[in-house]
């Protein structure tokens, strides 16, 4: 590895080091606050390293990593999400019975896994990244180990993720048998020489799609999502909904693009079916859901269905739209889960919609923030969610994918119903609830601030998206 490669890989090295630093800090018995602040600084350092590295790109660490503008965008988005999740984690875990310190090790390891996914160009790195992510998630989901539903969620995730990993490996093996390579670019080359329609290759991609579909919670592999979202501690839910999905989506995009899977109609058909099923099932499941965490789980199933519509054409415009979509989606979900974190009591997470009744009259700012996030999820103009959905529609319409586009429009209407239902609950008549004691004014303040900053960002994305889109385009050209 030469100096250039080292420097390009530095953000990822730093991410790995972050876990080690946290272990050391725990060994020296430093407090939660110190760990929290150190973690935040480390993430900032990763961001700085990413910016530094952006001048050197593209760099390939042959054969397993490909660090380019695409990877940079996804890693940057991931790390930003983790920074916010970390912020939420402090007020959340400080109040819980469990020792919060080891949590950060797992969080950073999971982030590393997701980040590795975004740069991997080889089955080995793909699998390592995915497992890093999954293994951290098993523990993270069940972190509050005295709580039944957390443990249950952890086990469910463990079993199902293990099955999906098995399929992934199986699929990889099949493709390896067919092409004799595990590196994306070489596979693509081999496929061009052979006609690429062999049963082995087809079945292999099918198996891999299952694993990816499971991680992204696409229908029909979505069943775990609601249980896990509900059972996991809220910051972890936020992590699953954003960082973990971003990483998996990144590797899917890269694999898809490098191999040129858009030339294989049967793969496209599979994704089309997944997309349509996710949009319909996700939105319908959320329709009468009374728990906000489960509702957001269903909503994110639907949102990844929308996202697949942009992904189906497999062209550059689709990638650009996908990045923009993920950005606005992540901000929105982080806001929503941030609000849930803030409102959660010591005993249980505030998921039940009844607990949100009349929130506006008690905490107008929090309710307004949540309202904006939900409006963005519903795709109301002037929010990032609207433009993101619009771009997806435009990409789909340009490629004349009329069927998924129509389903998108119709299911969005269904979606509007349950988002508005939540919003109307926020403005309903207030029920008296015991006032929660605020433990750490500083962290509450920063959490509030971050929520408001994200809301401003969301509206900015919805009104002046040009700067962001240009930046995304510029980065995507580095390859």
């Amino acid at each position, binding site marked *: 590895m030469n100096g250039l490669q080292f420097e390009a890989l530095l953000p990822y090295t730093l991410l790995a080091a972050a876990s080690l630093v946290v272990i050391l800090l725990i060994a020296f018995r430093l407090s939660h606050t110190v760990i929290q602040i150190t973690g935040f600084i480390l993430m900032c350092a990763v961001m700085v390293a990413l910016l530094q590295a952006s001048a050197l790109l593209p760099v390939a660490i042959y054969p397993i990593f490909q660090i380019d503008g695409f990877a940079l965008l996804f890693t940057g988005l991931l790390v930003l999400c983790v920074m916010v999740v970390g912020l939420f984690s402090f007020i959340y875990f400080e109040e819980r019975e469990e020792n919060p310190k080891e949590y950060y090790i797992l969080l950073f390891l999971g982030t590393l896994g997701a980040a590795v996914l975004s740069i991997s160009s080889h089955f080995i790195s793909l699998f390592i990244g995915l497992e890093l992510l999954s293994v951290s998630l098993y523990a993270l989901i069940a972190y509050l180990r005295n709580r039944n539903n957390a443990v249950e969620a952890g*086990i469910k995730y463990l079993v199902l993720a293990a099955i999906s990993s098995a399929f992934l490996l199986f699929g990889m093996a099949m493709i390896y048998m067919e092409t004799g390579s595990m590196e994306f670019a070489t596979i693509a080359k081999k496929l061009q020489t052979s006609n690429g329609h062999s049963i082995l290759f087809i079945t292999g991609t*099918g198996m891999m799609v299952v694993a990816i579909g499971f991680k992204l919670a696409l229908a029909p*592999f979505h069943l775990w999502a609601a249980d896990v979202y509900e059972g996991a501690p809220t910051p972890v839910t936020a992590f699953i909904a954003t960082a973990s999905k971003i990483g998996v989506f990144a590797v899917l995009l890269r694999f898809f693009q490098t191999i040129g899977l858009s030339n294989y109609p049967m793969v496209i058909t599979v994704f089309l079916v997944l997309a349509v099923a996710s949009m319909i099932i996700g939105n319908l499941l959320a329709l009468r859901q009374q728990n906000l965490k489960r509702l957001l789980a269903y909503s994110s199933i639907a949102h990844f269905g929308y996202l697949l519509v942009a992904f189906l054409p497999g062209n550059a415009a689709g990638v650009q739209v996908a990045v923009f979509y993920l950005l606005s989606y992540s901000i929105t979900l982080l806001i929503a889960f941030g609000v849930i974190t803030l409102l959660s009591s010591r005993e249980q997470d505030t998921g039940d919609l009844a607990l949100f009744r009349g929130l506006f009259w008690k905490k107008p700012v929090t309710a307004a923030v949540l309202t904006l996030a939900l409006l963005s999820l519903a795709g109301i103009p002037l929010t990032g969610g609207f433009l993101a959905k619009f771009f997806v529609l435009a990409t789909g319409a340009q490629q004349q994918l009329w069927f998924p586009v129509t389903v998108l429009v119709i299911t969005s209407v269904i979606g509007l119903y349950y988002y508005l239902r939540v919003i109307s609950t926020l403005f309903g008549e207030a029920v008296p609830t015991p006032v929660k004691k605020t433990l750490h004014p500083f962290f509450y303040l920063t959490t509030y601030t971050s929520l408001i900053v994200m809301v401003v960002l969301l509206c900015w994305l919805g009104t002046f998206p040009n700067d962001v889109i240009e930046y995304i385009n510029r980065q995507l050209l580095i390859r």
Partner: protein
Amino acid sequence: MPLLALIPALPLTGFLVLFLGGRRFSRNVIAGIGAGSVIASAVFTLLWGIRFLQSPPAGGAWTQSLWQWFRVESLSVGIDLRLDALSLLFVFIITFVGALIHIYSVAFMRQDRDYARFFASMNLFVCSMLLLVMADNLVLLYLGWEGVGLCSYLLIGFWYEKPANCYAANKAFYITRIGDTAMAIGLFLLFKELGTLSIPGILNQAPQHFARSASYSTLIPLLLLAGGIGKSAQLPLQTWLPDAMAGPSPVSALIHAATMVTAGVYLIARMHGLFLLSPMAMSVTAVIGAITLFIAGCSALVQTDIKRILAYSTISQIGYMFLALGVGAWSAAIFHFFTHAFFKALLFLAAGVVIEALHHEHNIFKMGGLRQKMPLLFYTFLSGAASLAALPLITAGFFSKDQILWYAWSAGNGNILLWAIALAGAFITACYSTRLLLVVFWGEAKTPVGKFGGRLIYLPLITLAALSLISGFIEWPHNILHLTLFSDELQQVLPATILQENHPPEFLLQGIAATATIAGIYMGYHWYYPITGRIYRWQAGTRMLAFRSFLLDGWKFDQLYRTLFIQPFLYLTRINKNDVFDRVYSGIARGSVSLNRLFSASQNGSLRWYIAAVLIGILFIVTLQLLL
């Protein structure tokens, strides 16, 4: 160049302050802000108006671009203001008469609970109206146009507790909306044809463009005319104005007499270039004006509600303006607007005093004898009524109406029939003005007179009374005195009136017009002077009674529309009570809910089932791929 934006900005500021903080201010502060902002606008207008007249700007207009409102491809719309002779005149009337009415309102509305809301709405109205007449492009004009419509709605329904007032407000809003929609379509067509909505741009390009392709050259002015008809309460959209009298009297004076209802006149005058290209549109304008002035005049003759008399008279007088516009007598129409604003505002304000003094009595036949009780009011009312009746040589109304009558025959588009109708209208106007005056101020008092008045009430009345008499002297008929200050100034903007080749001598027509007026006054006197009182005997006949009620209901237009539009619509709603189309939507909703139940059943929390679902998914995918 002066800061034009200040003129509409001051009332806008007044509106914002009163709207946001009105509840917290004392009545004096509210009055100060509400009236002060309009008075300040009026002062600026006067100062700049004098400057405009002394040293006219190059091109005859001051323009000011504030900022770009929006830009879509080639359409760029700015907040651009323009002050030329035509808009200056309108701005002067709006701010000056507006200021007087605001001063009057300070005292008139003093006891009202919603003092701040009243002034906020009035200020917003003044701002919108100023935008309408100062706009340099039709989009901004349309903003002002809709703004005045909104304020009119708010102020007609100002006393919203009474359902009838809300009904009147709704009626005004709906009916003017018909015109507004037509106008919007006209604007779209204009943009499609000319690619611009800037007023000077349209007036410049229209002649060449429509010379090449005349496809829309008639339709566009007719659509704009429809907009004007709605706002200006002309036939067939005139039915809202009499009901609009449900608002407070100052509102009737400012909005439904002096300014807003003349927006249609302004629009047509402003777009004269388009109308000149279409003889058909001009003729339609003239005919509509003529019929309206006659029909409304007849209705005014039999009304018993003092404000409804004035309302019908307003419709009728605006009919004169449309007639003048239609025959091509542009400056005559604007001149009538100018004098009408003074005397009609005066009459409404005076009527407000009468109504207040008589404890909210609107029926003129229950009034009477006010000449002795309220002499000052009597003299102001007398000058207003004289001006409305166009008493020759000493009132402003004479000078403006005489000009219209003269041009109705002699101008390019005029003919003897239009003149005859206008003449009949003049006779009727004189007749009902006399009737109004005699019944209210002569005879014995039938209702005890309360105390009402004060300096703030009478100052505007006296000012307006003076102007109703003298404001006509700036424009004399050519054959009497060569003094035409008004039309000289307006000819920078509006084309001069072209006369027909063989027209009758002007003296003759003037003589006939004056005779008609005097005859009308005599007829009014003959019928209604209390001692003779012939009308009361005459009224008893049943056939006359039916005819009278026909006129009283405004030629039954309301009933006609009810039968033609409202009842069929209500019938449709009745047979479609359980909306058929709603079934589709509730069906979708029910379907979604049952699908939701179905899918929710799959979320049973059992891991075995989840794994089975994953396996089924895999089988499905692999089969699908292999099949393809």
